[in-house]
């Protein structure tokens, strides 16, 4: 599915993660230190970085990678759990997972990142919809019709797809799409969601694609 560059000096953990991700269909390149990172960056979709490494530490390597390849998602995978470490890690990395992690969680986060950075040329099937994520083509495969969205609707739906399976609060959605602070009581988002549902849902009164999570927000689930 994706080309993952994994930097980890711990043998047992490294072997296990490589095996696990490979089993899930990813192509993993595992390095023991940050020395040869440069050569592999051009041919990968995602970087998984440990913090405590021989030589240059994971934070320094990560910052350098992000500076030169801002479109390359970085996931920090570390046994350092202090808030300061997480804050420093997230100042450049896109996710921070602490050890001991469950492999299912790692796999899920990898997928979220790949989707957020549009690294997957994925054909998503959501109920009656087929979505080609690279060019955002939406087809109702039951009728064969292509669904066309307006600019804002397209932006909102894409935001949902990049945060697939996550519950998005209305503040998060509004600020993610409009890029300005959400003002309590603003109905703009609700109105757009209603129009979006009218286009996407079979029965807009009983939405299946865009779920309403009562009291919290919305979710699009695979």
């Amino acid at each position, binding site marked *: 599915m994706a080309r993952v560059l994994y930097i980890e000096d*711990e043998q*047992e*953990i490294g072997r*296990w*993660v490589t095996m*696990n991700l490979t089993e899930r269909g990813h192509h993993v390149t595992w390095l023991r230190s940050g020395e040869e990172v440069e050569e592999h960056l051009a041919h990968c979709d995602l970087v998984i970085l440990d913090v*405590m490494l021989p030589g240059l530490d994971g934070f320094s390597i990560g910052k350098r990678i992000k500076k030169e390849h801002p479109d390359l998602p970085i996931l920090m995978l*570390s*046994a*350092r*759990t*202090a*808030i*300061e*470490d997480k*804050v420093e890690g997230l100042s450049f990395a896109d996710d921070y997972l*602490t*050890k*001991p*992690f*469950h*492999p299912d969680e790692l796999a899920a986060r990898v997928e979220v990142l790949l989707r957020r950075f549009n690294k997957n040329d994925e054909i998503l099937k959501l109920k009656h919809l087929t979505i080609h994520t690279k060019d955002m083509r939406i087809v109702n495969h039951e009728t064969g019709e292509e669904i066309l969205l307006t600019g804002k609707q397209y932006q909102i739906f894409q935001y949902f797809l990049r945060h697939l*399976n*996550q*519950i*998005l*609060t209305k*503040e*998060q959605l509004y600020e993610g799409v409009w890029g300005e602070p959400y003002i*309590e009581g603003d109905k703009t988002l609700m109105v757009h969601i209603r129009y979006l549902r009218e286009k996407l849902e079979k029965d807009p009164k009983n939405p299946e694609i865009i779920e309403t*999570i*009562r*009291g*919290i*927000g919305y979710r699009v689930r695979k």
Partner: protein
Amino acid sequence: MKRVKRLRSLTAKYMAIILTALFFINLLVIGTSLLVFNVYDHKDPETLQIEKAWHEDARSLKNPGSEDINRMFEEWQNRYPKARLFWVDSKGRLAAGRNLAADIPKHWNAAYTANFIKARYDNDPFTVIAFPKNDASYGFVVFEIERKLLQPAFTEVNTDFMYFIVPAGIVLFVTVSYLFFLGIRKRLLYLQHAMEIRDVDGLPVSITVRKQDEIGQLEMAFNQMVDELRESRKREEAEEQLRKELIANLSHDLRTPLTKIRAHAYTLGKEALTPVARQAVNTIEQSVSKMDRLIENLISYTLLNAKKLKYEPAPTDVVRLARSFIAAWYPVFEKEGFSIDVQLDDLEKKHWNVDPLWMERIFDNLFQNVIRHAKDGKYIGLKTKKTDSYDALVVLDRGKGFRHKSSEKGAGVGLAIVDLMVKKMGLDWKIESSETGTIIKIIHYR
């Protein structure tokens, strides 16, 4: 420390003021006595002059008769209108006179004359007795004038001057002393103000030392103290950094083997196992999670207690924050089959001055507790509550309550962290627990 140079010290300045004042007082006393003494000084130039002139005029009378003497008296009267002039002739008769008083007798005998001379000698009125033509046979002429009348301008001006100069001296002394102390007071106030200023790191700021006196020395001592404080703060920060580093490394070193245990358990779990072995793998898996939480909580608790956990409070919309927390936990509760009841309405004051990461930690611990201890209730509620005195975020569950021993113990540290964090952020919290559930309120008093 440098000693203050004697001449620059405040003591020296004050002594100079006092000594100058004393010097002037002495000068005044001496001056006054000189002036007073001079008034009665018979060597006074004017009296000498009068004495000389009177003798001269008397001697140069050509024909000392009534006519000549009266002319001489007239001349003198022009010069000294208040002077008493009289002539006693050779027979002892009062032959001529000006401004005569009743006590001057018409006839002078030898005894009276002797008495008169004795009484007037070097006394007031100032008296000159001369013989006309330098010959006693013409009798004698007398010039008398009160000394006060003789030098009126000179003495009166000087006594007025005395009345002026003494109070002026006192006022000057008081003013100079006042200005001196005002100067000291001003500098002390400046010093106090400078001592109260704090730098961005909360330490006092060094003061510019402008004078080398006692206050200057105080300023230097203060600066030295500031330097020492800064030095000690630096040491403390280095120690703090070391301690944090140590704890972070400890946490790392404990988690690495845990990760390996989980890796192996996971690998094992994918094999074909007997039910007993499968159960064992699951137990290992759960223990790893429990260990992980315990390590995290213990380290946080240690840091919190040592006040070393990063704390950055800011006005935060807690309703929005709470919504994002439950959004993150939603899939976990959903997977466990909970019914999730979220009712987050506006609060009276929804911006609390809290650290969002600490709030996240509090709610993580509370939700974690619900998953671990109140699974049976299959219910999680997150609500807002407004009363007259406070706003609150409320977490509800329908578990068997805190008194009931849950299958998984160890809630202690997690809730102890909640307690420490809540109090540090100036909030309060309440637990109401019964057989039918637990209600936890995070309270913000208005």
